[in-house]
């Protein structure tokens, strides 16, 4: 499984398909993502320090999150090129 397979483009950004409790995969994606940026201490959601769930660019949705990393937002096609 590659990181790009875990996101689908929706209006507003790239939505993570793994939901909010996919700890291992979210940490794996952030570990290789150039966009990862620590969010404020009070907003951390995962125990792994580096995780999409702890990234400043994740925007929570009811079921998951959107990745709002501006570089990624450029690729508004069905393919998430920045994570390839």
């Amino acid at each position: 499984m590659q990181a790009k397979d875990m996101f689908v483009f929706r209006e507003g950004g790239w939505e993570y398909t793994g939901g909010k409790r996919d700890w291992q995969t979210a940490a794996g994606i952030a570990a290789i993502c150039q966009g990862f940026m620590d969010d404020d201490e009070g907003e951390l959601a995962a125990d792994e320090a580096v995780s999409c769930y702890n990234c400043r660019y994740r925007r929570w949705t009811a079921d998951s999150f959107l990745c709002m990393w501006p570089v990624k937002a450029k690729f508004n096609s069905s393919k998430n090129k920045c994570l390839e």
Partner: protein
Amino acid sequence: MKIFVGIDDTDSLEIGATGQTANELRRIIMGRGWGQPEPVTRHQLLLHPDIPYTSHNSSMCFAVEASSQYLQEMIRCAQEFLESSSAPGADPGLCVAVDERIRNVEHLISFGCRAKREILQKEEAYQTARHCGLHLSEHGGTGLGVIGALAGLALRLTGNDGRFQGKIKLQQPGTAMSAAEILASSDIEEIQSIEGQPLLPSETVIIGEKIKTVLLDSKRKLLVYRKNDEWHTITNQHIELY
């Protein structure tokens, strides 16, 4: 008298954090000698595509015991601070309430609870603030932060919503401490399991990496969970629910 301060929407995608802004405002209030503010609580509001939040739609609130002579100055100071410190593109809102002057408290609390489930409008926030006797003002952008600022303050008043910001230092992670020792060495007021069972003072808790506390029954509580027949402090993964 007790003054409650709620703020929301002071950050942008890359700059600032409303929790930090609230803490800086606390420090200013302390520095001016107006009072000793209580810790900040973070209140989660509705996550919905039609709500233009930055990344988490959470709102911050703290309370401070202060003399009424400082109230107007405190409001002015908070307004100026939000205007000068909020990130470009933010939509900051400020709500200030004095506990003994709040009217129609059920109406106010209902607004806060609805903000966790429904999309609310700015006009309703202003109406509610007027109806309940609160100060509410916007300080840039669309000013939509007034909804969260009012809702966060209302949720803090319930005494049963949100988690405390800031770090609590206990002993090293992995250390065992008795519940009595934890209470004696921190601002934590009670320890209970996530199911709601209070711990006896003699019970032992294994300290985790980060100590997270929540507002329950109007107290700062440490929550613990059972693993391998021992109590452990909750992790980031558990705190999502608060």
